[in-house]
């Protein structure tokens, strides 16, 4: 029962983390969720807090972040295989997301802001941990 609960909690944390990241990036980029600058800053700060909290709970405390960032000589053969599966998943998803974004920027003839770029860097780093947390 506790395993079930912790698995559900972990998945909820992962979903909230990804949603807050998407919300943060979208609200900053489009600026359409709020009318005032102060409102934008408050909503972004709230999203950032949710992002940091769920990152700490879902990826740091569980050790998933550390595991997916271990160097190869420190992994045994099972860990290496698990890490490979996670990285394979992360590579496919990240490639699709980046290509879709490139297409969007090319079609709209715009340049990305700093926030989406920083979001992408974070996204690339958490994706293997997302896979492992979801499959746990």
């Amino acid at each position, binding site marked *: 029962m506790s395993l079930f609960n912790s698995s559900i909690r972990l998945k909820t944390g992962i979903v909230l983390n990804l949603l807050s990241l998407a919300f943060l990036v979208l609200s900053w980029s489009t600026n359409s969720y709020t009318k005032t600058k102060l409102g934008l800053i408050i909503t972004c700060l709230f999203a950032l807090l949710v992002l940091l909290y769920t990152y700490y709970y879902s990826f740091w405390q569980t050790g998933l972040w550390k595991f997916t960032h271990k160097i190869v000589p420190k992994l*045994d*053969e*099972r*860990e290496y295989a698990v890490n490979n599966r996670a990285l394979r998943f992360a590579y496919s998803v990240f490639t699709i997301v980046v290509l879709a974004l490139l297409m969007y920027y090319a079609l709209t003839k715009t340049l990305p802001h700093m926030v989406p770029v920083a979001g992408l860097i974070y996204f690339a780093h958490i994706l293997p941990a997302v896979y492992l947390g979801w499959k746990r």
Partner: protein
Amino acid sequence: MEARKIYNRIAVLRQERGMSRKDLADKIGVNFQTVGYLEREEYNPSLDLAFRIADVFNLPVDFVFSTKPLRPMSEEMMERGN
């Protein structure tokens, strides 16, 4: 290709020798969690790891691992004795 399930006697042999998972893990050079995965037959070891495990128990590799469900060791011993 779907891998076949590999059955093993690691848990029984380890307990017989009074070893902890950590002890065995240190001897075969893996994380102690990997020993748990091996004992629950949730992970098929490489040939190299299988030989290392068999060496720790000083037994032939086909006594420790099998592609068919393994019978209890006592049953097998009785049969060999007769």
